[in-house]
């Protein structure tokens, strides 16, 4: 196989942070090349350099044997580099065909654009209606549109950045099958960025592992094992359950469901939420007992995000009740859930933090505060939490923005738990975290549950739910399709419930 793309000695620093340090990457024709690394390892920066979105400090890009200049995104598109971004680059109120031709030049020809979309769709098996508006499509369909947008330009190198983070297992499998077809087409290569080991081992031919901006391994995927990759990626031995979660291997939950007989600390009854006339929650009911972790598992878009928003007080439901410790909560009053003792780790941790305020201020937000807070006491309290939760911060006065994703998550968790909640609601608490951080977050949840807090874990990652929860509730179309004790919750049985009974 010939070398299609070579990156040589790519370096990029952002202020004092070295994102890429003399990175070499060679991609061959006809291969799916995995780019593995923790968050902040430099994967995205490297690809942004290739795509002309970031200017490199040093290094050369060689495409089909020739040194090329990549000055900007149009430049990169012209060279045949296409990228499907993690946050998709689709303009939602526009239609599919409008999005697909967005980066083009020249006259707008709707009929031709639609024909193009359909031709690419048929060629790679990516069915989508060119006339529908993007904001009416599901996550999987949007990914398809983004792929079509890239593939229509006939790219020689196609980069996918964490493409499965919003997809179901089935949609992911379908995507990888499409990628196979893409590279099989002449003179093409795919670079797959991921931090999921299972994905890398299943879908790639060769793999390059980055750690802290440097290449620590490159070679054929078949010649390595997932544990080896994990060690390269993390650079240390990782906890068993975190590794298992990253590998997609299921481990038995730590404890059985012995506590379900206690009176529930969180009781949700018949919750209804309408968004634009369609029910997102349709009579959802569930109980969480003190000391248990109830896993809420389901495919993205079945209402779990809405439930998280309701319990965070962001959305007022159109019907139904929530009781905490037997007391009904007036959901129309802001802060009522917080006062009743519900701690929330929302899906997007940036909504839980004021990113431009300091670490100490963010930690103090839930603490009772006088009109004139004592800053020294606030910093002292923050210092204790930072130490207890092992949050890596440059200083207590650094803005929360300066922290890595894992440390932001610990910050949220520390604050929510410092308020001594009776119920902890966590939505996708480990999304986007690296293996080390996942293990840490999981241990925290278990400890919290041991202390008698009722934990509602909302997750689309089956292995996470099975690793932590003592009972698993499956959400489907805005209602609970079934609840299983963890020991009976096999992948098959859950799959059937998810499928909708």
């Amino acid at each position, binding site marked *: 196989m010939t070398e299609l793309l070579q990156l040589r000695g790519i370096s990029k620093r952002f202020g004092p942070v070295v994102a890429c340090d003399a990175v070499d990457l060679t991609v061959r024709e006809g291969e799916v090349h995995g780019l593995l690394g923790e968050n902040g390892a430099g994967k995205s920066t490297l690809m942004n350099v290739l795509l002309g979105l970031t200017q490199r400090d040093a290094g050369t890009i060689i495409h089909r044997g020739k040194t090329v200049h990549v000055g900007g995104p149009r430049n990169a598109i012209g060279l045949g580099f296409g990228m499907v971004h993690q946050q998709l680059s689709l303009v939602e*109120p526009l239609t599919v065909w409008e999005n697909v031709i967005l980066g083009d030049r020249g006259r*707008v020809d709707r009929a031709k654009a639609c024909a193009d979309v359909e031709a690419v769709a048929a060629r790679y098996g990516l069915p989508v209606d060119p006339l529908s508006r993007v904001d009416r499509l599901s996550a999987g369909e949007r990914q398809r549109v983004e792929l079509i947008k890239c593939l229509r330009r006939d790219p020689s190198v196609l980069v996918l950045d964490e493409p499965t983070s919003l997809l179901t297992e089935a949609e992911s499998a379908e995507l990888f099958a499409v990628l196979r077809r893409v590279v099989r087409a002449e003179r093409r290569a795919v670079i797959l960025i991921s931090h999921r080991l299972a994905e890398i081992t299943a879908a790639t031919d060769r793999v390059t592992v980055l750690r802290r901006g440097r290449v620590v391994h490159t070679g054929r995927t078949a010649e390595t094992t997932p544990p080896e990759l994990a060690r390269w990626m993390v650079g240390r031995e990782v906890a068993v359950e975190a590794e298992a979660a990253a590998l997609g291997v299921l481990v038995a939950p730590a404890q059985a469901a012995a506590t379900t007989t206690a009176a529930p600390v969180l009781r949700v009854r018949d919750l209804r939420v309408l968004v634009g006339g369609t029910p997102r929650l349709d009579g959802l009911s569930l109980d969480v007992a003190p000391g248990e972790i109830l896993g809420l598992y389901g495919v993205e878009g079945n209402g779990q995000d809405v439930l998280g928003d309701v319990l965070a007080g962001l959305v007022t439901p159109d019907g139904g009740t929530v009781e905490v410790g037997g007391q009904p909560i007036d959901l129309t009053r802001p802060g009522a859930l917080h006062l009743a003792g519900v701690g929330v780790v929302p899906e997007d941790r940036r909504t839980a933090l004021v990113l431009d305020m300091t670490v100490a201020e963010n930690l103090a937000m839930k603490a009772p505060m006088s009109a004139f807070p004592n800053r020294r006491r606030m910093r002292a309290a923050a210092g204790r939490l930072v130490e207890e939760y092992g949050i890596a911060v440059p200083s207590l006065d650094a803005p929360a923005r300066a922290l890595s994703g894992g440390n932001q998550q610990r910050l949220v968790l520390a604050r929510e738990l410092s308020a001594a909640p009776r119920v902890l609601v966590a939505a996708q608490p480990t999304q986007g975290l690296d293996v080390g951080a996942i293990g840490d977050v999981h241990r925290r949840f278990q400890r919290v549950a041991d202390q008698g807090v009722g934990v509602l874990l909302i997750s689309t990652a089956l292995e996470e739910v099975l690793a932590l929860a003592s009972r698993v509730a499956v959400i489907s179309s805005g209602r609970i399709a079934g609840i299983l004790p963890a020991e009976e919750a096999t992948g098959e049985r859950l799959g059937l419930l998810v499928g909708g009974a």
Partner: protein
Amino acid sequence: MLESVDTILSSGVRLTAPLAFAACGEYVAERAGTMNISVEAMMLSAAYGSVATASATGSATTGLLAGVLVGMVVGWVHGNLSHRLALNTFVVGLVLNALALGLTSYLITVSTLDSQRPSQASILLLLGIAPLTWWLVERSRWGLELRASGEDPRSAAVTGIRVDARRRQALLWCGALAGLGGAYLAVGEVGSFNQNMTAGRGYLVIAAVIFGAWRLGRTLLGCAVFGLADALRLALPALGVTLNSQVLVAAPYLLALLAMLSFRTSSRAPRALRQG
């Protein structure tokens, strides 16, 4: 009675025209993602510039063209300040509005302007400009990139669109048409320049775009409603009706507020306008 209806209608059309010209511009600026409040400055300074030019050259047409140019200058300044130097667009707009009011008020004290003969034929320009604006925004490549910039600037930039450039261009277009609106008001309608002669018509234009839910047809309908309300207000004393005319001055804004309330659930505003 029939006669007075006729009068109200014809004066309504004449009062609608400046709003409609400027609304075609403001519509484009907002679709590109700029909540452009300097439309008032564009109209006012263009009104002065057109009268000054018309009085110097003796040609109403030259006056109109000068108004277009003055409006574009304001748009150029606004565009560069907020979409090159990244200053807050509201602050820039407020400053420009205050500046235009102060500057034109000063200039009329130091210059003498001849009264010009009105040339109302320029109202026919609207028949060309409105469809052209619609076509540009909805059917051209430029308009597609413009809408993408207004709806999702990040995605647009990733796709290779120069978002700031599109927004500056949209502000130039807005300046040209708001300038034409101001010039039409001054040269085409009144024939002279008075202090603060636009008197908040720029804000009325913004209200019309909101009333129109960011669709051109409905925006122009909004202009017509506001123009007729204005004509009615002026005609009231002649009709012998003693309704407080201040209420009618407030009416368009009240309508815009009601329109916003009714779109609250299905907001169609370009997403870039909804941030912050």
